[in-house]
């Protein structure tokens, strides 16, 4: 039996965004509708290749006849909706969310837009007071839900803690983690199917964790690095990048990106080799690439050393630092 063809007009939804009419396909989200008409909506936990979790709430917009603001990333557009993306309420919530994150998390390695939004929404994370002292290594991973220590209000509690460096491929700096769930989704249901990490704990003590807070190598991690690929704040970072940043040698302006095809197997994953001083310092894959959607396996992501073991290449100032990245633990 063949289905009768439906007309184009019956297959769209009409709504109003910031006073302008827009027509979108029936299952489009408000975010897609906004982008279709060129309206910018900030996002942190949203990525085209992942299931929306709508937890960062920075994409909230105002929809008429809704008591609260709604997350644009996951709310499906409905016929006749009247949406405001820049109302006083929207601006206030976005500002507060940026302040909440800025006052509790190290955003210094976050995507550039974050800094721009801070200015755009006049966020002032400093008004909550100085940062609380970083916690000792592993302390946050042991917190039990239900009660917490005394609060004096003199400092703004944050998630600052030592970086977890337990392997030679990548580090986990949870001082920078905004708990956007992207790494969990990329590791599990949306890409890799490995489920090596999940959110553990509750409330402000919620954290990304392996089972029993095990080092990555002792758990289920297969080191595909897809979590790094989706992290918006630099909490997950190539060990090479982390070592170069520590040595103050990380220099994005001096880097070039070369697109190539992974040579390990026949799938055809595209790679973006980020090079500095003619050395590969990290590998990504274009998110819009049909084959990868930005995801890779351990070989494509980390198996590039053979490229640089060709013998007679001149020594570079960053070689020593990159060599340090291959040692199990940092000095």
């Amino acid at each position, binding site marked *: 039996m063949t289905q009768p063809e439906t007309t184009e007009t019956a297959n769209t939804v009409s709504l109003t965004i910031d006073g302008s009419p827009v027509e979108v396909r029936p299952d489009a989200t408000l975010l897609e509708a906004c982008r279709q008409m060129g309206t910018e909506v900030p996002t942190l936990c949203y990525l085209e290749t992942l299931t929306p979790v709508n937890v960062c709430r920075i994409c909230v917009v105002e929809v008429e006849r809704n008591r609260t603001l709604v997350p644009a990333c996951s709310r499906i557009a409905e016929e006749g909706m009247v949406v405001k993306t820049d109302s006083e309420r929207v601006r206030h919530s976005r500002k507060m969310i940026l302040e909440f994150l800025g006052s509790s998390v190290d955003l210094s390695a976050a995507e550039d837009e974050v800094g721009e939004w801070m200015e755009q929404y006049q966020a002032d994370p400093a008004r909550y007071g100085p940062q609380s002292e970083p916690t000792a290594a592993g302390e946050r991973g042991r917190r039990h839900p239900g009660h917490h220590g005394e609060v004096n209000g*003199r400092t703004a509690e944050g998630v600052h803690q030592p970086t977890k460096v337990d392997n030679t491929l990548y580090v986990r700096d949870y001082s920078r983690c905004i708990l956007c769930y992207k790494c969990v989704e990329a590791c599990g249901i949306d890409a890799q199917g490995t489920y090596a990490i999940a959110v553990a*704990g509750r409330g402000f003590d919620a954290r990304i*964790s392996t089972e029993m807070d095990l080092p990555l190598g002792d758990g289920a991690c297969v080191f595909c690095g897809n979590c790094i690929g989706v992290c918006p704040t630099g909490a997950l970072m190539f060990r090479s990048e982390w070592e170069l940043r520590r040595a103050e040698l990380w220099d994005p302006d001096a880097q070039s990106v070369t697109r190539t095809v992974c040579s390990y197997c026949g799938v055809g994953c595209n790679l973006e080799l980020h090079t500095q001083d003619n050395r590969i310092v990290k590998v990504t894959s274009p998110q819009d690439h049909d084959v990868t959607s930005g995801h890779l396996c351990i070989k494509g992501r980390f198996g590039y050393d053979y490229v640089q073991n060709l013998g007679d290449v001149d020594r570079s100032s960053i070689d020593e630092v990159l060599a340090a990245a291959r040692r199990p633990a940092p000095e």
Partner: protein
Amino acid sequence: MDLRFTDAQPTAAEREAVESVIGPARVDSHQRVRTASNLRIFAKGMQSVADRRHLLLPALEAVQSEIGWVSEGALMHICRELSVPPAEAWGVATFYSLISVDPSPPVVLHVCDDIVCRRVGALELMEGLEANGQTPNTRWLPSPCLGQCDRAPAAYIQRAGEDDQVLVSIDPRTRPIGPDGSVVAANGQQESPAAPQAGQAHLRILRRVGTVNPRSLDSYLAAGGYRALEEAVEMGPAAVVAEVKASNLRGRGGAAFPAWIKWEAVANSPEPVRYLICNADESEPGTFKDRVLMEDDPFSVIEAMTISGYAIGARKGYLYIRGEYPLATRRLRSAIHQARDAGLLGESTRNGVSFDIDLRRGQGAYICGEETALMNSIEGLRGEPRNKPPFPTVSGLFGKPTVINNVETLCNVLDIVADGGSNFASVGTPQSTGPKLFCLSGSVRRPGTYEVEFGATLGDLIELAGGLPEGRRLRAILLGGAAGSFVLPDLLEMPLTFEAASEAGVSLGSGVIMAFDQHTDFGDILARIAAFFRDETCGQCVPCRVGTVRVEEALARIRRDPQPGDLELIEEIDLAMRDASICGLGHTAAIALRSALELGLLE
């Protein structure tokens, strides 16, 4: 899905505990390699894995309850058996405050230090416990409200391998338990005292409390029990929904949503598999009305669920009760068994109704009272609320259309079916129909659960509870719980109806009326409320996870040394939490605080 487990093995006792809830082991725990006969995805595909995920929390609970904590070996065993990724199981186990993933002594005392208990000796009690230190056999932890505010101070005891129990009306100068974990005499009164109005002729929803034996189905039947179900079957499902619609019954859990809208939506759903959930995760500080119903009239909860399931076409109902209600749990379990044995519950009952009930225990998480968090909790996920829409009537438990109602809401259905919806609607006011339970606590002579018709005033309820003790003057009332708001005595004349409350800009919430006198340290109360929400937010969305912390910090500054801007800051945070949080916890977390500050209770 390629799961990887550590080598840790369970002890025999842990294995047995797990088996008691999920059945015989499918995987040989001594071999990490599975064979074709036990491997996960061979026979029935991924679905067989997904079908067992909901057993995760019951399995964790069984180990916690038998052993006292969940070891790595036990966790891995559960993960192998249920094919759950260990990191996800860890995420679930560490979400609940009643589950310990660290070695624990066999006896753990959870001492309520919430609003009411802390005013009548809980702090003194904890000081004593602190001085005595933890012993090898016992440990104590502070706990949020245990729903025993009419018998404060209270503590909940987890005992490895034995039934857990609740201690109430504890003398704070004594040690509630000895070094060996046994209850010290004079404490430990477990039996629920009947509601103060027990036996009074005018009662509707409380009429069996204290007069009908809660342990006996015969006693319930002799008091007219199960006649409503008979009538419902005679009427047919559509007529039952119509009566509920005519009754204008609104939800008693806090949101006051009309029950019939949910019922009608699910009853008319094209999806054949539907679920009913009875939300018995009563955790709003100051709330204990559902406990009274479940402890003293458990069969009515079971019958009401059966009627509801029949009306909406659900064959399976879940009763999700908070873990800290052991007596109610035992009585409900017994009621379910007796009803099954009598052919009143199960796949084919003598009424021709096919409906069964699965009782699930929460494990210490206020947020699981939020309907979609509760569903995630049943499904074996972390108790994080879902974004809505879709609403549960469209996509609820296991993605199926689901009606979820509070215990008290469901119990009203018995009279609606028996007497007709319009009769029910004639009680109260047009917009707030029927009887309503209120939980009176704090500075009143006779705290307890009271039933009135909608329309009684705040003052009437305080009067009903005997007014304030000698020499005490009413300073303020916390209406609706920690998620409600403070009001001053000038609202005593306000009728306690949804519409009058709404007009006054307050909420009846779950029916909490907590009275405070002139000796109240409101700073301490507010600090506790702020701490409560910080502890109980799931942590999923930024406004609530960080906002609750920043509110607590701002309040600490205001109490110590108020700076210009701190009050405004709390307002700003509140606005963002109300507007941008995912669920009701964030929406209401700062309401009580703001109301107290605006009313000048801190001055």
